[in-house]
């Protein structure tokens, strides 16, 4: 149910803005940090080298398939983490759109009250 901002008092409107601000901070905290993202890039590179090298080595010695297995493990782990990060980002993006709409409505309401006063 959409909240009718015109029903809110000035104090409640102020509180509502604070609430939105807190939700923005919370959304920002959900996003992944740069170091952990870089770590996963390194893992992708490592997995690629292990798998490729493992295939090449596997032609000479069956031991190479062990490298392939380790590389695959790395790949599975990284891709599932990537998928999780992307899902989080998708949900953050959806929530952000909702908050932006709320901010737009707030701006209109404040504008309306200011015009009404003057």
């Amino acid at each position, binding site marked *: 149910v959409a909240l009718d901002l015109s029903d809110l008092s000035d104090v*409640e409107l102020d*509180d509502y803005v604070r609430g*939105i601000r807190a939700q923005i901070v919370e959304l920002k905290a959900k996003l992944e940090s740069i170091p952990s993202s870089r770590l996963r890039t390194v893992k992708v590179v490592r997995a*690629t080298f292990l*798998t490729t090298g493992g295939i090449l080595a596997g032609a000479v010695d069956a031991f190479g398939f062990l490298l392939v297995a380790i590389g695959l493990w790395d*790949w599975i782990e990284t891709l599932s983490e*990537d998928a999780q990060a992307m899902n989080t980002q*998708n949900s953050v993006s959806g929530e952000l759109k909702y908050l932006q709409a709320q*901010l737009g409505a707030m*701006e209109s309401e404040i504008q309306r009250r200011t015009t009404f006063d003057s």
Partner: protein
Amino acid sequence: VNGRQVPAMTENKMQILALSGYGSSEFEDLEVTESIVVIGDRSQAGRMDKHSKWGQILAYVLLLLLLLAVAAGAAVISVHASDNWIVVMLLAGVALGFGVAALFYRRFIDQQALSLKSELQEARNRADALGTATGRLRARRSSSGS
């Protein structure tokens, strides 16, 4: 809380975040009489669910293709590798190609995160400006006695 509505939050830790939006002097004014009543915004939760799992689907498709390629590669190598290096090189190339694809996928995620961060900052600035505007509105109305 003290007759004031805390914005919709769904988990305990979020209640604290909601309260952190209050200024320090206002926070002292708050008095928790019985319990903090949080009205969860179910519609918001629904919106989150609606967001499709495209990221996950893409990752799993990529992974499935990789697994298939490597399994086929392992089978081919075990039969023909010793006398056919071209097949081995081809399979290694496929694995390398998947690695590059995975790196592009990572880059896409990073780009999306950067763009989200900048949008969040922009929204934060808008909220700050709105906070100032509401404060000014309140001050003007209280000074004019309306």
